[in-house]
């Protein structure tokens, strides 16, 4: 499977991304950048979703993609199980009961299948959204700031869970949080001045423990670079 995007991205007559030549490898690639830098646009282009910008170049991606956005996109009229099955229903595929139950258990929602989304906490809703991505079983998973609306402890727990559940897949995640990018990213790319800059990843396994002093130091350095006027 090749996931690649090359060329230039234009927003009207303004270049949003220049000299774009990104090829994704298995593992986590984190796209970091300030608001409006174009990181979400790049992710949506990769995922084949409509954008206001125009790609002048080529995109190569598998047909089957997992997608998780900042909003959990749970459907209020469906049960937890119904929401888990939603993508399968949209694809016209079955999602057998035992597999659905196993997925709920994997994200810590065992026995909650008949609950309504409104009965779930913010963290639980994002767990369900993650389970829905897992149910899709796509080799490429695109995440658009999936944890940015969560409180700090829940976010750290979700990062650990996502890293464990999505191991072995090609994951591309957009985030504006340097710590999150460094914790999870096998590759960290900073989008700045319409260019993608590859940053040195932290050593050691993923997710990098929050207590790692190197993480805080690298995040501070990265934040300083992002704030550079």
């Amino acid at each position: 499977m090749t996931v690649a995007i090359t060329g230039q991205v234009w927003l009207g007559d303004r270049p949003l991304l220049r000299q774009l030549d990104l090829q994704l490898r298995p593992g986590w690639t984190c796209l970091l950048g300030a608001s409006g830098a174009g990181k979400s646009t790049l992710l949506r282009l990769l995922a084949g979703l409509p954008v206001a910008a125009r790609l002048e170049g080529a995109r190569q991606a598998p047909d089957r993609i997992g997608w998780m956005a900042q909003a959990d996109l749970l459907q209020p009229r469906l049960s937890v199980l119904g929401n888990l099955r939603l993508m399968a229903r949209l694809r016209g595929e079955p999602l057998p009961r035992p597999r659905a139950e196993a997925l709920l258990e994997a994200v810590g929602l065992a026995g909650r299948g008949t609950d309504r989304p409104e009965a779930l906490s913010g963290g639980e809703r994002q767990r369900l959204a993650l389970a829905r991505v897992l149910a899709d079983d796509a080799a490429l998973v695109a995440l658009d700031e999936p944890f940015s609306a969560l409180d700090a402890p829940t976010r750290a727990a979700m990062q650990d869970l996502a890293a464990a559940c999505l191991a072995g897949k090609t994951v591309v995640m957009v985030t504006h949080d340097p710590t999150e990018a460094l914790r999870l990213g096998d590759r960290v790319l900073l989008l700045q001045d319409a260019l993608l800059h590859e940053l040195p990843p932290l050593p050691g396994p993923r997710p990098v423990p929050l207590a790692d002093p190197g993480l805080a130091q690298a995040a501070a350095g990265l934040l300083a670079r992002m704030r550079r006027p």
Partner: protein
Amino acid sequence: MSARIWPVLAIFALWQAVCAAALVPAFVLPPPLRVFETLWQERGLIGQHALTTLAETGAGLALGIGLGITLALAMSLAPRLQRLIGPVLAGAQALPVFVLAPVLVLWLGYGLGPKVAMVALLVVFPVASGLHDGLCATPAPVLDLARIARASRLRTLLWLRLPHALPQGAAGLRIAVTYAPTGAVIGEWVGASQGLGYLMLMANARMRIDLMFAALLVILALTLLLNRLTDRALARAGL
């Protein structure tokens, strides 16, 4: 319930006082107690005509709601159809349906037909446009899911658009139900031998103003009852 009964009682009390003070003659505005008396005495006659109006309203509602939902879904599935039907629906709303009543009687005769058609015509627009507006208003991030899944138009409609459109569809339905009995009564005014509208005309011609007001009260009660039933059914469906 008890809190809501007081304003109603106050209106009746005021009405009774106006009549008792002889501010208006009884052949213009009969006192409410007299109207209630007539309502009781003529209960057989009124009930029989009310059943006719109720049947027309029910059949028209079923037809109009079914047609409205079908139109909304069809327009959502086939954008070409929407370009075709959309303006017709909007135009139909610009034309007061009541002016069609004589035409409907001409085409469909004096029986149930023109009344059912009248109710259906009144109902179809709010249902179709409410539901269709809702179907068009699905949030873009939700539709991203359909694109990711490469879902067909039908699956997108069933699993994403329709559930999101239900509240707006329900709003259209509430409006439609309020119009429905009025449609039946107007149909009866134009040409009928049964129904509360016919009873009102007949009572008016015979100077039975009390009977006319009694029929009016029954129409009001019928409309309120239909509203109430609709609200309950929709609330049960979580809308």
